[in-house]
């Protein structure tokens, strides 16, 4: 689960990580009130939206006067924000963060993630902040420093020293101390809140030698939300695709994509492999949809409903491997779902596994128009014939 920058900065404050003074604004009136309270000009107006590349897309505006600030708020709230991650139609912005402008002399990078290979949290630090970590890693990997944290002992200040004293031209001793304290607090935040990512980029050093989290990014481990109820309340549903939200209600795993072949599969791995197969035949999947290893009739029905709501879908491929759940049961589920709606696109069904003959017979004798595929190759061919 992703948090907004303003939410992440609120949490930073709670955990003792300094951030610039700022206020959230949802309207022009809010913005006026905010600017009265915050010292400035200058101010920075930042779109609060889940999309990377915000700065380049015009979602972060530096304002040198009241007028510039109002105009910035106005333009961000009224037009959809287009970045490399949003697609051409862009994304509606509902709120902006207005911050007091600060003069930053040096930009550092600081983040914490879980390192999968060593099964440990790792703190990543670089003296060349501001650009994204992939860029830094590519251009100058020697500038990316890592400290792995032993989970039994947790954070120790030597981790911080190992990182902070590598900044290059050393900042003043008090600044180094502040950097190390930010690191310790970031570790505490990361583990207390079950984060999967906590990133400060840039971590700025001001002319006066003060350390400030200029930007903030926090992702929470979805598996831990059952014990992070407060984080769950921060989930901004407006940022998600409405079909993804709907799928979540039925425990279906749905991700919208840009192609036109709707896909429904039981199991995540098989779903990915099915999407890959569609690509191989020269088409593009419209979605990822995993109805689970033990899908019920109802889940299949809801899954079909969600796929059909995507107007780009020109054909649907249902690929089910019946293991413990038998193919005849699954076929009945598909049938029930198909009968309830008027499906205008070709429906290709591929069943395999336990009781497969019975399952296929149910579909073939249903009087409805299914294309029943014997195996994956045939399923792909049928899709190709319908669409490509």
């Amino acid at each position, binding site marked *: 689960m992703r948090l907004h920058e303003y939410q992440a900065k609120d949490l930073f404050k709670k955990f003792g990580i300094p951030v610039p003074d700022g206020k959230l604004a949802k309207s022009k009136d809010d913005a006026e009130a905010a600017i009265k309270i915050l010292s400035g000009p200058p101010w920075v107006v930042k779109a609060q939206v889940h999309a990377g590349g915000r700065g380049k897309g015009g979602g972060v505006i530096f304002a040198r006067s009241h007028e510039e600030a109002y105009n910035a708020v106005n333009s961000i709230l009224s037009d959809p924000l287009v970045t490399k991650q949003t697609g051409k139609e862009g994304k509606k912005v509902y709120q902006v963060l207005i911050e007091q402008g600060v003069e930053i002399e040096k930009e550092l990078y600081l983040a914490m993630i*879980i390192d*999968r*290979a060593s*099964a*440990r*949290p790792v703190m990543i630090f670089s003296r060349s902040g501001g650009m994204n*970590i*992939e860029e830094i890693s590519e251009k100058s990997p020697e500038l990316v420093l890592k400290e792995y944290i*032993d*989970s*039994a002992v947790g954070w120790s200040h030597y981790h911080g020293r190992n990182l902070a004293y590598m900044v290059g031209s050393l900042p003043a001793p008090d600044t180094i101390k502040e950097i190390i304290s930010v690191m310790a607090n970031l570790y505490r935040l990361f*583990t207390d809140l*079950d984060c*999967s990512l906590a990133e400060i980029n840039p971590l700025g050093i001001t002319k006066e030698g003060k350390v400030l989290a200029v930007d903030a990014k926090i992702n929470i*481990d*979805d*598996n*831990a939300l*059952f*014990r992070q109820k407060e984080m769950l309340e921060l989930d901004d549903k407006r940022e998600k695709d409405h079909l993804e939200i709907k799928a979540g209600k039925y425990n279906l*795993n749905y*991700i919208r*994509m840009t192609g036109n072949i709707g896909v429904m*599969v*039981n*199991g*995540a*791995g*098989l*779903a*990915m*492999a*099915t*999407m*890959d*197969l*569609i*690509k*191989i035949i020269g088409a*593009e*999947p419209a979605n*990822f949809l*995993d109805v689970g*290893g033990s899908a019920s009739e109802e889940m299949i029905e809801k899954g079909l409903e969600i796929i059909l709501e995507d107007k780009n879908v020109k054909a649907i491929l249902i690929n089910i*491997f019946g*293991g*413990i759940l038998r193919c005849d049961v699954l076929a009945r589920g598909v049938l029930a779902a198909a009968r309830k709606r008027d499906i205008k696109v070709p429906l290709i069904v591929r069943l*395999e*596994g*336990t009781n497969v003959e019975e399952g296929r017979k149910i579909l073939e004798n249903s009087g409805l128009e299914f294309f029943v595929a014997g*195996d*994956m*190759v045939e*399923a*792909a061919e049928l899709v190709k014939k319908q669409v490509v």
Partner: protein
Amino acid sequence: MSILVDERSRVVVSGITGREGTFHIRQMLEYGTVIAAGVTPGKGGQKVEGVPVFNTIREAVSNENVNVSCIFVPPPFAADAILEAASAGISIIVCITEGIPTLDMVKVMHFLIDKKCTLIGPNCPGIISPGKTKVGIMPGSIHKPGQIGVISRSGTLTYEIVYQLTKAGLGQSTCIGIGGDPIIGTSFVDHLKRFKEDPGTEGVVLIGEIGGSLEEEAAEYIRDGFDKPVIAFIAGQTAPQEKRMGHAGAIISGGMGKAEDKIRAFEGAGIKVAKDLGKLVVTVLETMGKVG
């Protein structure tokens, strides 16, 4: 032959009285698995499908001499169940549970460093040595005893591939689902090492997916001295970045963990990669046709 589990394995099921546990214990018993005990705290003394239930794994170990555990405990308590099994001296722990917080698994992996046990999963279908025993939730009927080892991060995708192998007459020595989470107990390399030593395994099918670097590590290990034929398959060539594709571990993050990089690693190490799921068996037959 087989690795890790066989007809001598004595299994204890944690979470035996839950809905999942009760359903799958029946399936395992039907397959011939020796389920010697079950554990649900507070329900010691009961029986499920004729299997005696204990309050703790320690009791199950001392009373029934169990050596393999299969965990069906819900996510908030599953890490604790793994720790309990490891501390009771269980040698092979299979954790089926999906949805364990990653930081819980960080602690578990630290605890296991000096324990003599192998953790399979979590978030996995389990392990089966066809014809001998199955510890997990995979459908037993699709498997057939033989000489191909299977290691996979997925569930139904593995069933699909195993079924294709079986239909083509290619039996399996042991099939292991290592799990779809970011942190899992054992890797491809861990099991490749075992298959290397197993005279009953003549080739390996390795089923990977996007996220992490276990496939890259496997490619390197195979290149440096795994002397049996390997066919790899990688799911997720069309997966978008920064999206969790069902499995918690199946995510391309910060440009890392892409299918194309994994395929390149395998091919660079001289390992055949089947790119089309529909034609995987053809590739297996071409490479190890005489096997099975």
